[in-house]
C-alpha cells in the first residue's frame, strides 16, 4: 500500500475531478463540498508521508519509492519518491488545496464545476512535479501545471485576466522550452557516455559531468526556467499581474505552491545536476537574489493594490530562499527549504485574507479601507498574525527561516561576498516591516472613514476553518522548528555534501586537465580524492 501512496496522491485528485462530472451543473454547493472533501482526503492520505522510515542511498524514503518502466526504449520510467525536501512541499500542496477550495465557495459560483476540476488537476500536477524523479516525468508534470493555472486565471480571473493569463503562460513556456532542450541534451550525453543506453532517470543523469560550456548552458537553461517561476528579478513582472487577476484561490495556490516549484527545481535540478556550473554562477545568483529582496520590498512599498503588494513581497521573500540556496550551506539550505514552507503558509494566508475582504467589498485598493480593526476585530487579529509572520517576527515561522538563511549564508564558503550580501538582504527585513505595517496601518487603523466599511461582517465559521490550520502552523513552526528541520536534515545534508564534493572535485580536475567530453562524476570524484591524497593536486588553501 505505502509504495503506491505517492501514485495515489497524484492520481486521486484527477480521478476526483472526473467524479465532478457526475454532479448536475446546478448543484454548485454540492460540487464544492465534494471537491473540498476529495482534496481533504488527499491531505489526510498525505499525512502518511510523515511516518519516519528507512531511506535509500539517495535519501528518499524507501517505503514510498516507486519506479516502473514506462518507455523502455528511451529509458523513461515512472519514478517517484519523497525525501525531506519534497516531503513538506507535498504536504503544503495537499494542505492548501482544500483550504483554497474552501475559500472559493462564494467567490466562484459561476462555472464552478470547471473551476473545481481545474483545481484538482492542478493539485495532481503539483504533487507529481514534487515527487517525480525522472526528468521526463518531471517535465510532464511541470508543463501540466501550466494548463489548469492558465485556465484558472484566464477564465475565472479579474478584468484583465486574459492579458495576465497569457503573460503567465508565455513567461513560463519560454523557460520550460529551454529546460526541455537541456534535459534532452543531458540524456543524449548520458547515452553517449554509456554506449547508447538512454535514460531520463534523475540519479543517472546526475552523474553526467558535462564539459564546461555545455554544462553552463544547460545549467542556465534549467535555471532560467526556474528563475521565471520563482520569480527572480528581473523576470518577475508576470507575477503581480497574475496575482492581481487570479481569483483568490488561484492566487493562494500560485503563491504558496507554484512559486516553490522554481526554488525546489533550482535546489533539486539546477544544483543537483550541474554542481560546478551552479558553484560558478552562485555568486551572481545570490547577488540577483539580494537585488530581488530589496527591489521587491521597495516596489511593494509603492503599491496601493493589496494583492500587488503581497505579490511584490513574494519577490522579496523568495529572494531570501534563492540566497540561501545559492549559499549552498546546510543551514542556509535548511532555512531556504523552511522558508519555502513559511512563504507558502504566510503568503497563502495573506491572499486568503485579501480574498475575504474582496468578497465583501469588491476592491483591493487599501485606500478604500481604514479602521477595519474596530469593524472586524477577529479578521484584524488574524491579519496581524500573518503580517507578523510575513515580516519575520521571532516566535513566528518567518523568523526561523530568515534567520537560518542569513546565518548559513554568512558562513557560506561558496559566496565570496557573503557578508555584504547578508547585510544588504537585511535591508529587506527593514523594508518588510515598512511596507507590511504600512499596509496594516492604512487598512486597519485610524477612524472608519468609508461608510461602506461600517457594516462589514467579521470572518465567519467557514473562513475561520481556513485560517485555523494556517495560524497554528505559523506558531508551531516558529516555536518548534525542529519538528520540521529534523525531517529535512538528512536530505539537506546529502544535497549539500553532494554539491560540495562534486563541485569542488570538478573544480580541482578542471584546473589540471581539460575535459572535452562528458564524464562520470562518481569516477572523477574518486579520482580527484586520490590525486589530492597523493599530493598531485594542490589543496584549496594553496591554490590561487
Amino acid at each position: 500500500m505505502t509504495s503506491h501512496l505517492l501514485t495515489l496522491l497524484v492520481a486521486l485528485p484527477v480521478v476526483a475531478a472526473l467524479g465532478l462530472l457526475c454532479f448536475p451543473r446546478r448543484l454548485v454547493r454540492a460540487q464544492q463540498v465534494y471537491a473540498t472533501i476529495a482534496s481533504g482526503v488527499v491531505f489526510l492520505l498525505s499525512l502518511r508521508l510523515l511516518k519516519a522510515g528507512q531511506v535509500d542511498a539517495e535519501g528518499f524514503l524507501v517505503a514510498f519509492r516507486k519506479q516502473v518502466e514506462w518507455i523502455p526504449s528511451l529509458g523513461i520510467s515512472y519514478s517517484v519518491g519523497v525525501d525531506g525536501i519534497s516531503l513538506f512541499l507535498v504536504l503544503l500542496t495537499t494542505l492548501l488545496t482544500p483550504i483554497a477550495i474552501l475559500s472559493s465557495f462564494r467567490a466562484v459560483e459561476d462555472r464552478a464545476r470547471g473551476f473545481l476540476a481545474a483545481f484538482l488537476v492542478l493539485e495532481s500536477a503539483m504533487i507529481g512535479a514534487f515527487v517525480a524523479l525522472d526528468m521526463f516525468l518531471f517535465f510532464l508534470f511541470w508543463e501540466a501545471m501550466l494548463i489548469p493555472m492558465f485556465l484558472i486565471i484566464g477564465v475565472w480571473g479579474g478584468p484583465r485576466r486574459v492579458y495576465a493569463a497569457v503573460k503567465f503562460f508565455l513567461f513560463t513556456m519560454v523557460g520550460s522550452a529551454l529546460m526541455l532542450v537541456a534535459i534532452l541534451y543531458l540524456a543524449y550525453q548520458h547515452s553517449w557516455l554509456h554506449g547508447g543506453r538512454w535514460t531520463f532517470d534523475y540519479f543517472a543523469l546526475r552523474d553526467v559531468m558535462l564539459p564546461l560550456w555545455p554544462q553552463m548552458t544547460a545549467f542556465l537553461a534549467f535555471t532560467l526556467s526556474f528563475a521565471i517561476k520563482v520569480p527572480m528579478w528581473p523576470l518577475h513582472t508576470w507575477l503581480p499581474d497574475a496575482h492581481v487577476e487570479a481569483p483568490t484561490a488561484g492566487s493562494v495556490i500560485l503563491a504558496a505552491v507554484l512559486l516553490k516549484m522554481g526554488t525546489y527545481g533550482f535546489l533539486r535540478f539546477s544544483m543537483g545536476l550541474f554542481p560546478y556550473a551552479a558553484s560558478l554562477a552562485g555568486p551572481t545568483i545570490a547577488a540577483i537574489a539580494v537585488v530581488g529582496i530589496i527591489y521587491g520590498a521597495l516596489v511593494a512599498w509603492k503599491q496601493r493594490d493589496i494583492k500587488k503588494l503581497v505579490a511584490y513581497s513574494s519577490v522579496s521573500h523568495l529572494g531570501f530562499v534563492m540566497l540561501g540556496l545559492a549559499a549552498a550551506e546546510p543551514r542556509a539550505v535548511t532555512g531556504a527549504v523552511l522558508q519555502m514552507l513559511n512563504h507558502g503558509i504566510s503568503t497563502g494566508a495573506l491572499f486568503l485574507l485579501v480574498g475575504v475582504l474582496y468578497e465583501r467589498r469588491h476592491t483591493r485598493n487599501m485606500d478604500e479601507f481604514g479602521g477595519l480593526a474596530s469593524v472586524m476585530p477577529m479578521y484584524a487579529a488574524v491579519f496581524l498574525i500573518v503580517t507578523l509572520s510575513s515580516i519575520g517576527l521571532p516566535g513566528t515561522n518567518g523568523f526561523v527561516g530568515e534567520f537560518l538563511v542569513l546565518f548559513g549564508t554568512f558562513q557560506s564558503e561558496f559566496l565570496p561576498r557573503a557578508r555584504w550580501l547578508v547585510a544588504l538582504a537585511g535591508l529587506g527585513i527593514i523594508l518588510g516591516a515598512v511596507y507590511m505595517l504600512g499596509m496594516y496601518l492604512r487598512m486597519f487603523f485610524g477612524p472608519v472613514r468609508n461608510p461602506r466599511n461600517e457594516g462589514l461582517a467579521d470572518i465567519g465559521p467557514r473562513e475561520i476553518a481556513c485560517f485555523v490550520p494556517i495560524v497554528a502552523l505559523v506558531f508551531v513552526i516558529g516555536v518548534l522548528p525542529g519538528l520540521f528541520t529534523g525531517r529535512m536534515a538528512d536530505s539537506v545534508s546529502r544535497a549539500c555534501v553532494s554539491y560540495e564534493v562534486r563541485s569542488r572535485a570538478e573544480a580541482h580536475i578542471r584546473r589540471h586537465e581539460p575535459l572535452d567530453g562528458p564524464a562520470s562524476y562518481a569516477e572523477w570524484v574518486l579520482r580527484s580524492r586520490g590525486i589530492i591524497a597523493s599530493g598531485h593536486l594542490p589543496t584549496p588553501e594553496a591554490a590561487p
Partner: protein
Amino acid sequence: MVESNPYIAWIVGFPLLGAILNGFLLSWIGKLLPRGTRANLTARSTVGLIAVLCVVFPFLIALAATIRLVGGSPGREFIAVLWQWLPMADLVDRGLYHGAGLFPPAAADLSVAAGFVFDRLSAVMTLVVTGVGSLIHIYSIGYMGRDPGYRRYFTYLNLFVFSMLVLVLADNMVLMFVGWEGVGLCSYLLIGFWFDKEANAAAGKKAFVVNRIGDLGFILGILLLVGWLGAVDWNGLREAVASADPDVLSAGTVMGTSVAFLACMFLLIGAAGKSAQIPLFVWLPDAMAGPTPVSALIHAATMVTAGVYMIARLDFLFLLSPTAMAVVATVGAATALFAATIGFAQTDIKRVLAYSTISQLGYMFLAVGVGAFSAGIFHLFTHAFFKACLFLCAGSVIHAMADRQDIREMGGLRRVMPVTHWTFLVATLAIAGCPPLSGFFSKDEILWTAFSGTAILRSGLVPDFWPVVLWLAGLAAAGCTAFYMFRVYFLVFWGDSRAPQEVRSALHAPERRSAASWLWNEPHTPVSMRFVLIVLGACSAAAGLIGMPHVFHVPNLFQKWLAPSVAAFGGGGTALEEWFLMGVSVLAAVLGAWTAWTFYREYPSRQAQAVVGAAPRLYRLVLDKYRIDEAYGWSIVRPARSIAFACYEIVDRVLIDTILVTGSAYAASAAGAMFRRFQSGVIHRYAAVMAIGLAGAVLFVAKPFASVPLVERPIAFATDGGRDPATGEVLLRLAMPDAPYVYEVDAGPDGELDVDPEASPERGPSGAADTIRLCLPEGDHVVRVTARSRFEMSQTIDLAVRVEGAVPCAAGAGESGIGGGEGAP
C-alpha cells in the same frame, strides 16, 4: 556554578499564560460553557486580576530565586533549558574529507536552545521588570478602568512582560533577540493602542521600523559573533573569549576591521535602536501616543533599557575593543546632553519625560562605555523607579485634566492633587540628583567614573582629555535635567490654574486637610493609582542607598552584588576629587532648579520670555526638536521613496513590461504580419513559393556537393613528404566522394594526359585515399586533376605543385600511375 532550576521558566511562563488566558482562551471557554452556567470569564475584574497575578507571581519567584542567589557562591546561576529551538548544527559531516584538505574544518554545533538563565545581572533586571511591572499593572486597573479595550490592553501588557522577561532571561543571543523583537512588537501594539487616531498607529509603526533598523544591527552582530567565536550562549561566548589567545582575538578581521570592533558597532546599533540613542532616538518621543502606564513601563523603566542590559551582558566582548567602548561612551554622553536640551522647550508633559528618558539612557550608555557596567545597571535600576513614578504622576495629572497633556494649560495642581504632587516632587529631586535620593548616587557614580577615566577608556583610540569632555557633557546634562524637570514641576503644580473653565470646575481639592489627606486623599485618582505612586515615590527616594559610593565608607552593595556578573573598573582619582566632583554636580543641579524657579514660578514669566526673545530662532529650533525628524525624512525616507518610485514606474513598468515584454510581443506579431502574406490561399502562388523554396534547397544542398574538395591536403605537394624518397616521384593524395570514378591527370604544358582514364582502373566508393604518382621535373607546375564518374559527371581541380631539388625520375625511369588503398592519411 550552574544549577538547573526549572522554576525559572515559570517567571517567563506566567505572563504568557496571562496573555493567552486574557487574549482568547477565557472568552472561548466562556462560549463553550452551557448556556445556563455561563459565567462572564472576561469581566473587567477577572481580566485585571489575572493580568496582575501573572506578573506578581514571577516577581515572587524571582525574589525567591534572588534570595537563593544571595546564599550561594558568587558565580551561582540557575538555568532552565526547555527545548532545542533552532537547529543550527552544521549538517554536513565533513569528516570523510578532512584528510584530503578539500573542506574547511567543521563548525561547532550552534543549535539555539530555548533556555533561560538567572544570574545576578538578570536577577536585577527581572526584579525591576516584574516589580515595576506589577505596580504598573495595578496602576493600570485604575487608569484604564473605563477604556473599552481593557482586555486587549492587559493582554498586550502581559505579552510585553513575557517578551521582556525572555529578553532578560535568555541564555543566548538569539533567544534574547526573540525577546528584543517581541518587546518591539508589544511596544508597537501599545503605542497604537488607541488606533482609531491614525497618528497613534503611525507612531507605533515608526517605533517598530526604527527599532527594526537597530534589530538589523543586532542580527548582524549576532552573525559576526557567532561565526567568529563559535558559540551562541553567554557562557559559551564568555569562555571562548576567555580561553582564546588575546593576540588571536585581536587579529580577527573582517573587511580590514577588527571583528570585535565591528561586532560591537553592530550591537551598538541594535542597542541604540532599542534604547533610543543617537541616531535612532526619534521614535521614543512619538511613542508617547500610547497610554501613560505603557510609557512608564515600556518607554521608561524596562524596554528602553534593554540596550544597556545587552551591553552589560556582553561586557567581555566590548572590553575586547576599547575603541568601541569609547564610541559607546561618546554616543551616551552626546545623547544625554542633546536630549536634555530638547527637553527645555517641550510643552507636552509626556514628551518632556520622553526626552528626559533618552537623556538618562544616555547616562547609562556613558556608564557602560567607560567600563562602569555596574554603575550603568545601577542607574538603570534607580531610573526605573523615579522615571516610572514621574510618568505615573503625569498619568494621574492627565487623568485629572481630562486627557490634556500641555503643561501650559496646567498649574496650581499641588493643592488639588497632594499625593501626586509629593511623589512627583520626590521623583524630580531624585532625577535631578539631589542627595540622598536614588538618582544622586547612581548619576554621581557615573560622572565620577567618567571623569577619573578608567583604564579601558584610556586604552581606546581617544585623546587624553576625552574623559573630561565626557564628564563635562554629563555634568551639563545634569544641570539641564534639573532645569527642565523643575520647569515641569513648577508649571504643573505651582502658580494658578490655567486650565479651561470646564476642566477647572471639575477639579476639587480633598475635603479634609489633615496630614493623612496629604499622603492619601486625592479625589481625582483611584486608590490603585495612589498606592502605586506612593510605593514608587518611596522607592525613588530610597533605592539609591544600596549603592552608595566608597567615600561614604559604607559598602556599595549593588556593585558587590553584580561583581561576579559584570566586569568592574574603578576610577583612578582620589577621595578628595570625588568629594569635589560630587559637590560640583549637586551645584549644577541646584543651579538648574533655581533657574527653573526663577523662570517658571509664574507662567508666563517675564524672565522666560526675555530669554526666548533674545534668540527666537534658536528657541524655535529647540522647540522643533532640532528638526531631526525632518532631516531624516529628507535624507533617508524621501530618497528611498524616490528609488521605490523609480523601481516600479521606470524599471518595472517601462523597462521590463513595456520594452522587454510587450516589445518582444510586438516583434513577434510584426514578423507574423510579414509572413502572413504568404498564405494567400491561391494555389499557384503556393506553388511558386514552393518552387523558389525548392530551388533554394537544391542550391543549399547541392552546391556544397558540387564543390566537395577533391584533394584532401594540397599542401602536401610542396613538401618533401609529398615525394617518394626512392623514386623521386611526386605523390598526390586524393579522395573522392562515394561514387565510381576514374582519374584523368594532366600535368604540364605538353597537352598529353599523364594519367589516362582508359588506362587507370576504376576506383570504387571505398572512401580511402588514392595516391597518384607523377614524375615531374624541377620547377613550378600546375597539375589538373579530373575525376570522371560513370554518370559522366566530372570534376576538375588545379593544383599548384612546386618541385624542388634533383629529380631522379626525370630521365623517364619512373612511370606515372595510381596506387590506392593505402588508407586515409
